């Protein structure tokens, strides 16, 4: 009769719910183990920054005393969140304690050892480079043409992979020493202003 309930296959409904959630859980957990998964862009870039400390030598005058911390600084809008802090947490850099600093002022960051210049500073990049070019600071950025514009290391995303560009002229200006391994892995560029 029309106005009576039909038999509904509710077991299918329940089965679907449970199957879907279990599937999602399984896939997400498996992803944690997977080696080929995509990782957040700035987590990988932060790991690169940590790795660079193993392949760059800072001049002695870059440190006021043997106990001075190793400063990793972000100038402008910070794209890392707390990832940089987590990457360097519990580690040492050349026997020094790492400290992550953030500021919108170049003057406040002139004692840094690594300076990540955010894309938000693109318009005043030339002025920033001019202020710190002889200060023994490893400048890193990911804005377009960062290395060609006078920065030392550019981290560029292309086809979901990070490429390294190293400005050899900027390296010479900075008094930093960069391992040949890093120079071989990265793409070297010039800004034509070597002294």
């Amino acid at each position, binding site marked *: 009769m*029309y*106005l009576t*309930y*039909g038999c*509904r*296959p*509710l077991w*299918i*409904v*329940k089965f*679907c*719910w*449970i199957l*879907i*959630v*279990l*599937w*999602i*859980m399984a*896939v*997400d*957990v498996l*992803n*944690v183990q*997977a080696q*080929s*998964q*995509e*990782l*957040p*862009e*700035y*987590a*990988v870039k*932060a*790991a*690169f920054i*940590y*790795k660079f400390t193993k*392949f760059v030598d800072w001049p002695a005058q870059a440190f006021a005393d043997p106990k001075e911390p190793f400063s990793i600084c972000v100038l*402008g*809008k*910070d*794209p*890392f*969140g*707390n*990832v940089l802090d*987590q*990457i360097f947490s519990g*580690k040492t850099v050349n026997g020094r304690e790492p400290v992550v600093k*953030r500021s919108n002022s170049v003057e406040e960051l002139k004692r840094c050892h690594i300076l990540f210049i955010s894309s938000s500073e693109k318009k005043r990049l030339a002025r920033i480079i001019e202020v710190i070019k002889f200060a023994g600071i490893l400048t890193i950025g990911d804005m377009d043409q960062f290395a060609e514009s006078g920065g030392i290391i550019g981290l560029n*995303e292309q086809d*979901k*992979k*990070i*490429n390294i560009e190293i400005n050899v002229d900027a390296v010479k200006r900075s008094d930093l020493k960069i391992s040949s*391994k*890093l120079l071989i*892995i990265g793409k070297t560029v010039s800004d034509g202003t070597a002294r």
Partner: protein
Amino acid sequence: MVKSFQIFIALLMIEISIALWGPIAWAYEDLTEMSLEELLDVTVEVASKKGEKMSDAPAVITVVTRKEIDAFGAISLVDILNRVPSLQHMSSHLWVQAKPVIRGDLIAHADNHTLILINGRPFRDALEANSNFALYTAFPLDLIERIEIIRGPGSVLYGSNAIAGVINIITRVPEEENEARVTIGGGSFGATLGSATAFASHKEWKLAVGFNYFKEDGWDFKAYTNSPGPSGGPVYGEMKYGEFNKGLGALLEYKRFRAQLYYSDVKYDSLGVLTSWSSEGYVAGKRLFVDLGYTHPFTESWKLNLNVTRNSWENRLVSQITGNDPNSADATVFEGSISGHFTEDTNLVLGGLSEIRESKGTSGVIPDEYSEHHYSAYLHVDHRPLDPLKLIAGAQYNQTHSGRYRTVPRFGAIYDFNDSIAVKLLYAQAFRSATPLEEYIDVPNLIGNPDLAPEIVTTVDAQLFVNTARAQYTFTVFQSHYTDLIKRIIVPPANQTFVNGGEIDILGAEFEAKGQMSETLFATGSITYQVEDEKDKTLFIPSYMAKAGISYQKGHWTVGLFHSYFGKPRENEPLGGLTLNKEARAINLLSLNTTYRFHFFRPMAINVYGSNLLDDDMDYTEFSMGWVNTLPIGPGRAVYGRLSVEF
């Protein structure tokens, strides 16, 4: 069912915990252990392309992408919208498949609490603000790039009707390569369907055109109704609910100019203006939407937007008791805005508009000509005083033709704890101006009121937004307070009119998850709890909704399975005591979409799409007139087959 629902929630909570803490804790340690060569080989997910804008947006937003539409399939927008969190697409005795109910806003059967936008421009008719059915069932789906659904108020930027939510349909802009696709098919209930789309670009000209055709003999609508009124005896009847929909959309861009058009001609069978077989007939509606836009960049940071948008509308209610009842009206919006940023941290939008609503006396329910002028001005500012903190403020001043004015504000704060976790706190108001129908209607027993104030809603949202390596999760709680609702009252001895009055409170919680779990697997799901304040109990809405879908795409194959669960709505107490129809019940809509792509002279695809595969009865509480306990709001199981050829 309740038990399985509880299991579902429990499993999802576990899933959230794993998703939140698992990848975050794992990834950083392992990354520092990698060599430089290994790091160079890591595939990264570019943050700016994934969710960052959504967590930054000053609203609670769900985005349905082209990829999801292809994965889960659809015959019309109705299928797509029913998968959106906190949304249930509703039919009444008169308006069939005509009302997306967002967050339980089933206050009336008119579809005037959700604003539809096409590429950001208002699709709003000038009589009832109620004829969007001509879009839901006819819009060419192949034209769509994505659909953005805002849950909550949107009037500060979008004006009237953005009360429960905003649905913004973003259409595809042609790429460099020209392409075209033709699709034909058929299916259950005697359906025949077809579509054609073409995308072309030449130098700075870009053109997209899409046409959609759908004709169906109809599904069996069976019910007892009262005749002729609530105290009349029960009358059993059956009819076929058929449809015949045609929609044409087009977008043309040249340099800084953009023109867009949408035309539709829709006809569907309906029980009519009463929940009585005596009004059985059909509704026929036509909509013409035309928008001309120009963008002028003053500087790299500032631009001027100018738009003229015209919505023309015509519909007919055809039945024995209404005869051939035609109605038509036009609305034209002139709008200008300036947007830009003072610094990287401060953005501003400042705009104003004038809207003319007019009819030349061709409406059956409004015998006289009318021409109304409405004015609005709006301002939106957001600023980051600290890097992780974004503050939002905005307001729209709105003045109706009768001189009534009102300003609706919004305020918000978004705090990014890190790349993965953000919280939003939003406060906003929205309004709906009285429609010309409510102001000027002049039919036996119902007289309009030209002095109506706008309806107002005030909503508070708090949202936790989480991005993991592969997925996005949001948890939102909301409360909406409606005031000055426009409702009918009886004026003795027997007339009715419209007045402002009544308040409603709705509160709820929403959980949404979405993620690309692997290269081939995509999963999405949501849970909604919504409840009307205890003191009111006027809405016939379900307390729970839960939706989940998984899709698999590899090589030639795409398969998508989606299940939408809508809980049992509150039951009514029919005026005439007629409870012979089935009881209101929970509705389970299960759909399966399968597409196989191949090459046979041309690139081709075969698609089989099944909706309501559990053949669930869609009996819903009759929420509009209250004469009977329930009415069917949708069809049973349906299967459609389609063949597409690309050129």
